[in-house]
Structures are given as C-alpha cells and as structure tokens.
C-alpha cells in the first residue's frame, strides 16, 4: 500500500514532503491539491473523510494527516 508521503509526492512530485512541517505555508499544497489528496486517501485506505474535515489544519503536515487518518481507524 502507498504511504502518505507517496501519495503527496504523486500530487506534487516537485516537493520533498518529508522536509517540511507546514505544507501550506511552504506553498506545497493549495486548496485544490487538498481535495485531490482527500480523494487519494479515501481510495487508498478505503475510508470516507468527511467534507467538514477538509480543513487546512488537517493537512498542514504529515503528523496532521496521520491524526486525521487515525480518526478513521487508519494507522499510516
């Protein structure tokens, strides 16, 4: 199964997501990238992230995304 970093790199291959603590402030993810990310996370981990959970703070860095997935019972 693909890791979160693999998925992020698939969306924005030009960035090193392991090296950033704030994807939004560093300009690595925009609002549409977040939607693409949610679509990929839903499909990869067979979950349904709720629309109301699609907030910038849930996608700011790897830890935030891991915390969101944990709410859906996924350890990644």
């Amino acid at each position, binding site marked *: 199964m693909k890791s979160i970093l693999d998925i992020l790199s698939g969306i924005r291959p030009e960035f090193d997501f392991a090296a950033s603590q704030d994807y939004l402030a560093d300009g690595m993810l925009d*609002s549409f990238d*977040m939607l693409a990310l949610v679509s990929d996370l839903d499909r990869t981990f067979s979950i349904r992230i709720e629309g109301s959970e*699609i907030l910038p703070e849930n996608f700011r860095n790897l830890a935030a995304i891991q915390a969101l997935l944990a709410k859906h019972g996924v350890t990644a």
Partner: protein
Amino acid sequence: MKLVFHGKRIEGLLTVLPANERLFVDEMDQFDFPRGRSLKLKEVMGYDRHRLVDGDVCVSDLAVAGFEHLFAQGLLDRDGFDALIVVTQTPDHLMPATSFVIQGRLGLKQDLFCLDINQGCAGFLIGLYEAFMLLEQPAIRRVALLNADVMSRKVSPRDRNSYPLIGDAAAITLIGQSDDNAPIHANLKMDGRRREALMIPAGGLREPSSEETRVAHTDAEGNLRARDDLVMDGSAVFNFVQTEVPPMIEALLASAGTHMAVVDTFLFHQPNRFMLQKLAEKLQIPCEKMPSNVVEHFGNSSGVTIPLALAFNLRERVCRETLTAVFGGFGVGLTWSSLLMPLGPLAFCEMIDYPQVN
C-alpha cells in the same frame, strides 16, 4: 427560517444551453499549472466540458430564444403568464431590470409583474419562493421563472479555480396553482458576513470598473484574475457547503415529518462532482438518487444547475409520474436553502441549444 407553502406546482421546464462547447483538455494550457495537476483536478472534480456563450450574448438573448421556442411549440401562450421573475447575477444592464428587457423584446402584455432578483446558486429556490408568494394574488395565475447567467463573461480565462467549472445557461420554469393542498416545506438561511467568499469586487458603484480594476494579478495559488472578475474562496465555500447543507436537509425532512427513504430524488446545486459526492456520503444518499453530472457535461451555471440536473437526468420520468423531490441550493450571499415538494407530471421538460439549429 422555516417556510411553508400550499397549492403550488411546477408545470413545465425548458433549459437553454449555448451550443458552444469547450473541452477542459483544450483549455488546460491557459492556466499556469502543469498539465499533470490539471488532469488530476479533472479526475477529482469532474471537469470535462462546459457550455459558454459566444461573444456578447446576454441573459435576455438566452431568455428570448427560450420563450420564443415555448410560444412556437404551443407550450405557452404569449399572454399565458402574469409574472416574470428573472434570477441572475449577470444582468444585461445595471438598469432597467432584465425582466423588463425580456418583456419588451417579446412584446409581452403590460399586466405583467416583472421582477429581477440578484441571486446565484440558491437562485432556483429563491425564485420558486417568490413565485409561490406571487401566486397568492388572484390576478397572478401562472409565473414564469427565468434562471439565467452568462458568468463566463465575468470569469478570468486564466483562473483555474473558477473558469473550468463555469457554464452559461438559462432555464424557464412555469409555476402555477395545484389542487393538492398538502404543505410544501422549505427552509432558508442567509449570511452576509461571509459575502466575500463569492464576489465580483469591482464594477458596481462601490468600486467602479476602471483601467486599474481590469488589470489581472496572480494570486497565491497562481491564478490570474482582475478585480472586475469573479473571485471565489474555494476552501471557504467548500467548508460552508459541507458544514451547513447536511443539517439543513435533515432539518427540512424533520419539519415535514418525513425521512430520506421516501424521497425519490435529491436535486442539489451542482458545484462540482467531488463536493456532491462528499454531501451524498454524509447524508447517506444513494448516488442514483442524487445526480452529480451537470458540471462534467455543461459546467456550473449557478441558479440553473438544479433545473438542468432535472431536465438532463429525469425529463422523461418527470413527464410521466410524480416524484417526491428535495431541492438544495447553496452559494453567493452566502445563501443556503432546501425545499421538499411533489414534482410532476410536468406538461413538458425540454432542453434546447442557443442558437437553435433546425
């Protein structure tokens, strides 16, 4: 607020779509984004093609073509309606109202209540409520509701956040009295504090259009637009819809004392496929009951998307039988509203192109 109406029905529906169809893959290079990212967006949001007016086509042009079609086909008499409600954000002029332009161009009677409403993606519902209220007057036996926008003329072609999803269209809905006096339940909320989430900043009197407001600037996400163009805070709008719409639908059904299973179709505004999928998941609505295919075929035409979703997906069925329908609109203002009513059988439900090719 809760609204209740009695004894009203939708009698017929016609949509008018510009014949000019543009493909997303042909437009990708006008955005300052790598093709791979744009293709990903296409896959997630459902962008594929959209209908746009050519040149200086205005709302009244689409409307006149639609009404002339109804007159020519014998679906409506020229004197067969007593009110004309026009819901648009892209009027022909600042004044007079576009309803008067249409009345004059069609040579309609003077005993006609002409009314323009500045509304967007909830505009079909707002128009229905106004029609229902006008029909309380004995002199008003039938209302023609025109939802129409040519928003492509106010969106920067280099704004990837908005241009790919925009579509131009019009819909004429005839509304009249019904013998069925069962209550029609609706609800409505508005929030002007969030008005800047969807806005055309310049071009009105607060910030008149000028050489300066026509100059395009690049935003933080790489979109190029001017202050004369539509600007949409995509994240704010997405969060607004996902937060406010599900409880609104649940409150509507609770007010009506009914539940999801009895509803045959959920006809929601069509912003993009992803947003609708997330709403359907939250509300546990089966996808076959909730069309989400308008943006990929025609683009998002603001207040026209609900009647367009109906005509495109259900036109044969709604001319044959009565469906229990929930309408849901949400957008500029901000405005969010929903309505539960019996729908059909309609006298007609048609789609035509503009200009028509015979």
